[in-house]
């Protein structure tokens, strides 16, 4: 795969080249391919990618459950793990939003830590946004045969403005056509611990989402957040759908031949 960055980056003054990947806990545990796809996309855009070993989770489960003490401790750990990198790239709008928007608010009573959190926030980017908005990537060379529909995950969309970037890159994927949902911006019902704390509501929400997905006629569902993807994949599969579910980075990195989320390996 060759990523054409030479022409389009000329108007950016020296984009960051040494970047750290924040893998995210879900990608680490359930879908390592997303991490490798991110590495591939970043390297082909001319970056050197490092994966700081002390990173774990961004702390959202604690933060969103009201456990501010744990959230602060975890945030401090993440801040330390990513010190010194020009850019921190996250293949998730939700975790990216946590670093870029919420960390500083955890340290309102601690100016030194707040400054560090703000510094990290300024260096943190969601993967699609980093590729398109910072590095100026405007196409990839990947191929994927099929019709895909793209779900706009909530945090990426509303906290980070991720909407056009993945679609722009997907346009350049050979053989791929996009068929939009009626309401791609409506929440899929995942919501972290919400989906197990209020399973009936979550189920009603994801059922509506899968109906919208199915009505597009797409054979592939893409999104930029693994939590949402696992939720929608799990529901589609429970409903007996054959729609393949993948993280958008996998398709962009020309890794569309690996088994879809929740499907056994060795089968496409």
């Amino acid at each position, binding site marked *: 795969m060759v990523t054409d960055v030479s022409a389009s980056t000329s108007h950016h003054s020296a984009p960051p080249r040494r970047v750290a990947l924040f*893998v995210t806990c879900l990608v680490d545990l359930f879908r*390592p391919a997303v991490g490798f796809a991110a590495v591939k996309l970043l390297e082909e855009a001319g970056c050197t990618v490092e*994966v700081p070993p002390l990173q774990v989770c961004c702390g959202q489960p604690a933060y969103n459950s*009201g456990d501010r003490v*744990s959230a602060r401790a975890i945030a401090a750990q993440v801040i330390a793990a990513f010190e010194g990198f020009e850019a921190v790239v996250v293949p998730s709008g939700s975790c990216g939003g946590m670093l870029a928007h919420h960390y500083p608010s955890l340290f309102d009573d601690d100016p030194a830590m707040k400054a560090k959190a703000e510094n990290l926030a300024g260096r943190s980017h969601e993967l699609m946004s980093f590729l398109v908005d910072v590095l100026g990537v405007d196409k990839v060379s990947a191929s994927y045969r099929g019709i895909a529909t793209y779900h706009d995950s909530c945090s990426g969309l509303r906290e980070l403005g991720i909407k056009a970037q993945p679609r722009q890159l997907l346009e350049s994927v050979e053989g791929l056509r996009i068929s939009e949902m009626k309401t791609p911006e409506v929440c899929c019902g995942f919501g972290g611990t919400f989906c197990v704390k209020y*399973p009936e509501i979550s189920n009603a929400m994801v059922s509506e989402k899968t109906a919208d997905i199915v009505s597009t006629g797409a054979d592939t569902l893409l999104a930029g957040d693994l939590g949402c993807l*696992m939720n929608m994949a799990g529901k589609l599969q*429970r409903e007996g759908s054959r729609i393949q579910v993948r993280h958008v980075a996998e398709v962009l990195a020309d890794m569309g031949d690996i088994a879809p989320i929740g499907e056994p390996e060795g089968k496409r």
Partner: protein
Amino acid sequence: MQSTAHDFKENVGTALSDPNLQDSLAKLKVGFSERRRQAAERLPEFEVLRDRARDIKNHALANLDFYLEEFERKVTALGGHVHWAPTAADARRIIGDLCKSAGARTVAKSKSMVAEEIALNEHLEQLGIAPIETDLGEYIIQLRHEPPSHIIAPAVHLTKDQVADTFHEHHAPLGFTRRLTERNDLVAEARYVLRQKFLEADVGLTGANFLVAETGSSMLVTNEGNADLSNTLPKMHIVLASIEKVIPTLEDAAVLLRVLARSATGQESSAYTTLNTGPKRSGDLDGPSQYHVVLLDNGRSAVLGTEMQDMLRCIRCGACMNHCPVYGAIGGHAYGWVYPGPIGAVLTPQLIGMEEAGDLPNASTFCGRCESVCPVRIPLPGLMRHWREREFERHLTPRPVRQGLALWSFLVRRPKLYRRVTQLANRLLAMFGRAEGRYHTLPLAGGWTRFRDFPAPPAGGTFHAQWARHGGARIRP
């Protein structure tokens, strides 16, 4: 109003299995949000107006004592009376006394969520005074003895057929014996029945969208004109409003009106916008001879100066619930009290207590759609998170959640141990899930697998294990 917020989870079950409700919600979800979107797009300065609306309300809240007293001075100078009600009980007593002093047998009411909040109808009935709801939606649910399910569309949970049945049952004794099925016919029949009640009413009671300090006016917007009949025909007009409704000037009201109707129904402006400024003056052709404003606090002043203050900016447009996927799934009644949806999830714990309404701020995915449409930019997910923090601090978070969090947090804060545990979990999940690629049931994950399959990770280990194994080399799995 009696709260059932404590039974949120049971309420959810009831709502999800109610086919009429689900029919109604399906329409609401598309209709309101589409109309709001179009209205916002037609007005280039809409986003700037939202900023100004937020700033106006922030300024009013920062100087609330000043503007309330200014409002009182103006109302008094006009010959009206302002009554201060610290609690719901005070407001009920004040209004009851006023109605008795007017010798009232019936009170014509236009829609007021604050009246719901203080359970005014029940109180008036106990006094032998008949409250007549004159807003069509409120009238329908009054006939059915139901609480409102939406702050601007109180009967939005009902289908047309249900309304037809209700009218048929209640209007037949009045001589309307035919069961109507057409929307316009139903409205016409309600209009005829209600018109008689306006003429008979001794007191008119309305809420207020805004209280304007510089003029002492209360401002009301409706689409039915019922408020205008409620406040001009009877001899006494009582305005019931909560204290955060006060704004400095008419100029400010103009800004707020421009975002209110667009956010609520997608209209440029509601059909009727009415200013009530004191009682009937000599020479006026009509109007009430007595004009009273009851200002309700009921826990609101305690929010001032706290991290929760932003909730008081609310202008009750309903956009947050119209765009909320949780509200869209369960409707308003499941929230269990007066204010449903995202704004209800932050107001209700404040007004009736966290112990009673603790589920509400938790039942959100934090999708942020509410905040993205709020005309006064209330950070609703952030406020819900503050409630969760207060619950956690006070040990009101359910024990299994606390224990799970504690264990998870213990591991996350020890990255090396976390790696070993997750590598083991990854290996087991990959191994046992290999054949199918997913799980239909999984221990400790019943909330998930009851409705969805759980994807198994592929073989090969966690990302970090693979990365380390290859010395950080760029391999493909």
